[in-house]
């Protein structure tokens, strides 16, 4: 059995309750929700509404109808950025963003939207003061601040609880990419002043791939990116004004959403604190184990700083992709190597072009898995030093 340590990409395996929900809903209720009015379709519609409520409760979202289901966090981010920003707007982001944020911003920049990327320090941290300064810089206040809560490269956690309420006071939209933090760190859209929250359902929330959502604060009305059937207002040639239907086109994946609900319930029943404690203990074990190996450089926050669910490192004179290949092929250990779809972040921490090796344990990994990784790293490094000698 492989040791899977790439949970920052997607969590695997899922809890049994998620598989059960997928199976049961797939067999009994994989019906198009919000379309027909026969009993099964209504039941599917009720189930989808319950999932909306579950998401809303988990993030303290006051109105479930402001939760728009998407295929992933990337779609949610694109819906918000392309749907709301207009030429002449100024947007503040950071140099730690995943391509899900940085690529849409790059395109928007070519369409007359001004983008300012606040630099992170070498551990991947961005200060709230630097964001505030950028927002008011140049005499024209920014329209939006958009950043990732937790870096998928370094695990650095950005101070959204400081930035959000300040943005709200200033009338600046605050958007958080919670792809790496949802299901790991507490997120309260009201107390944190979050106007737009984009998250994947298949990472920390433990749902299946193909799930995600965008939360939009009351009053925001983005232009849709895709147009089509919504289950209501069928006679109208236009998309409805109301959320979530305005931004949800085509048939929703009822069974995947049932899986997402089961995932969130699992997280809720175990508690974020316990989940984080488990992952932190594994990362601490990894940190100290790696620190004893020759030529290892660990990137990201120090052990005394708060960190998300992953650890990135590199080896002097070694190509991360080769080490990753050896771990996989010879030892059945799955970790991520390279740039992790976030080249700006690697530029910030000085790991371009090779990138890093990233280890992201999940809820079902154990100390024995980390021990196995450390033993294997030791063997690989010994073998390499023998060969080079």
């Amino acid at each position: 059995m492989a040791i899977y340590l790439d949970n920052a990409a997607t969590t695997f395996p899922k809890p049994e309750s998620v598989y059960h929900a997928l199976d049961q809903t797939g067999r009994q209720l994989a019906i198009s929700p919000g379309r027909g009015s026969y009993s099964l379709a209504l039941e599917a519609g009720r189930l989808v509404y319950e999932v909306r409520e579950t998401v809303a409760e988990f993030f303290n979202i006051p109105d479930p109808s402001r939760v728009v289901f998407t295929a992933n966090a990337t779609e949610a981010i694109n819906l918000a950025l392309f749907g709301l920003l207009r030429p002449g707007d100024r947007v503040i982001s950071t140099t730690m963003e995943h391509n899900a944020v940085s690529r849409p911003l790059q395109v928007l920049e070519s369409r007359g939207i001004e983008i300012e990327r606040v630099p992170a320090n070498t551990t991947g941290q961005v200060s709230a003061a630097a964001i505030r300064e950028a927002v008011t810089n140049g005499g024209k206040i920014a329209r939006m601040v958009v950043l990732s809560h937790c870096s998928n490269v370094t695990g650095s956690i950005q101070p959204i609880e400081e930035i959000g309420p300040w943005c709200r006071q200033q009338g600046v939209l605050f958007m958080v990419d919670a792809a790496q933090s949802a299901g790991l760190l507490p997120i309260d859209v009201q107390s944190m002043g979050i106007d737009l929250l984009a998250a994947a359902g298949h990472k920390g929330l433990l749902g299946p791939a193909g799930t995600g959502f965008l939360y939009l604060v009351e009053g925001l009305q983005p232009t849709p990116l895709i147009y089509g059937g919504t289950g209501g207002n069928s006679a109208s040639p236009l998309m409805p004004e109301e959320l979530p239907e305005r931004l949800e086109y085509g048939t929703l994946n009822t069974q995947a959403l049932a899986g997402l609900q089961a995932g969130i319930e699992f997280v809720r029943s175990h508690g974020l604190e316990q989940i984080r404690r488990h992952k932190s203990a594994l990362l601490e074990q990894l940190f100290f184990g790696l620190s004893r190996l020759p030529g290892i450089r660990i990137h990201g926050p120090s052990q005394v700083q708060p960190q998300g669910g992953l650890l990135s490192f590199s080896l002097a004179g070694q190509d991360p992709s080769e080490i990753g290949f050896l771990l996989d092929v010879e030892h059945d250990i799955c970790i991520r190597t390279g740039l992790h779809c976030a080249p700006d972040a690697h530029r910030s921490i000085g790991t371009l072009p090779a990138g890093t090796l990233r280890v992201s344990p999940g809820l079902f990994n154990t100390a024995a898995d980390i021990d196995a990784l450390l033993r294997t790293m030791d063997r690989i490094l010994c073998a390499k030093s023998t060969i080079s000698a």
Partner: protein
Amino acid sequence: MIADGDRIVLFNSPTRVMKAEKLLRKAGLVCQLIPAPRQVAECCALALRFAATEQTAIFNELAAANLTPRRLYGKHQGLLSALELTSENE
């Protein structure tokens, strides 16, 4: 599907009608989701049906949740007609 003395309300989205049904059932009020009749289905394919005698309680519950329906219809002598959106109608 709709009998004399019944009321139906339409909302502006399928999600809102689901929300309304859940809220009303939780409050112990009797209502049922039905396909919106063809002549009134312009805003949502689903309607929420209830007895006219429940109208006040249902409208109060919906108002408390800031869930105002978009249309209200009543059936009288076999004819469905639009009614004013208030908690009581003659």
